C-alpha cells in the first residue's frame, strides 16, 4: 500500500483552497542506478479530486512532475464537505485519501 497523501482543504468566502502532497518517487526512466542500469519509469499519471461525488479537479502527470508531487487548486464549495483524492500510477497502483473541508 503506498504512503498516505497529506491533504489540506480550507474554505474561505465560498472558495475551498486545496493543497495535496503525494508520496511517490516519480521515476522518469532517465536515471541510472549504481551499476549503470536504467531505472524504469514509474510515476503517478492520474489524479482526481471529488467532493460529494462531483469532480472538482483532474490532472494527468508525465514523468516531469517532481518527486513527491504537490498540487494546489481552488473550487467553489463549503465547509464540512468530504473531499476525496485518488491517484493512479503507471504500474496501476492506487491510493485514495479523504478529508473534511475545514
Amino acid at each position, binding site marked *: 500500500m503506498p504512503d498516505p497523501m497529506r491533504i489540506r482543504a480550507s474554505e474561505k468566502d465560498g*472558495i475551498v483552497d486545496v493543497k495535496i502532497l503525494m508520496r511517490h518517487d*516519480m521515476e*522518469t526512466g*532517465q*536515471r*541510472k542506478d549504481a551499476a549503470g542500469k536504467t531505472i524504469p519509469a514509474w510515476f503517478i*499519471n*492520474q489524479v*482526481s479530486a471529488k467532493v460529494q461525488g*462531483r*469532480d*472538482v*479537479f*483532474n*490532472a*494527468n*502527470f*508525465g*514523468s*516531469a*512532475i*517532481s*518527486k513527491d*508531487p*504537490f*498540487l*494546489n*487548486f*481552488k*473550487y*467553489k*464549495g463549503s465547509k464540512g464537505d468530504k473531499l476525496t483524492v485518488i491517484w493512479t500510477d503507471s504500474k496501476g497502483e492506487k491510493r485514495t485519501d479523504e478529508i473534511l473541508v475545514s
Partner: protein
Amino acid sequence: MNQQRRNLLKHSMVFGLMATAGLISTSQAQEWSKAAFDGKSLDDVFKALNTATPEKSSAITLTAPDIAENGAVVPVGLTTSLKAEQVAILVEKNPNTLAGQFYFPAGTEAFVTTRIKMAQTSNVYFLVKAEGKWLMTMKEIKVTLGGCGG
C-alpha cells in the same frame, strides 16, 4: 478469438456503461494521452493536443522563478481570467516535453500550482484551453542544477 482482445472489449463495454450510468463523468474519463506525453518537441505535443501553435495571451499570469537552483523541484503555477477548462505545462528542453495536464470542471477556479522537473535551462510554455481554443504564454527558467539523470 484472442483472449486479450476479448478482455479489452469487455473492459471498454464496462467503462462505456459506467459513463452512460453517470458513475464517471466525462471530465473524469480524460484519458492519459500517450501520444501527448511521449512527445519529444513542442510540435509533437501541439499535434497531440490537436492545435496549431497557440496564440500568445496576456491574460495568463504565471508564478514561476527566473532562476531555479534545483531543476528537480521547480515550483510553477498559473492563474488566468480566461474561462479555462484545461491547462498544459510544456518544458521545451526536457526529454519528454509535456509535464502535466490539468482539468478544471465548472465551479473550479482557473488556477493551479505544482512542481516540475527541468533537465536544463529552458523555455517553459503554459497552455490554457478556454472556450475550445488553446492560448499560451512562455517564460524562460534558468536551471543551475539539472533535475533528470545526473
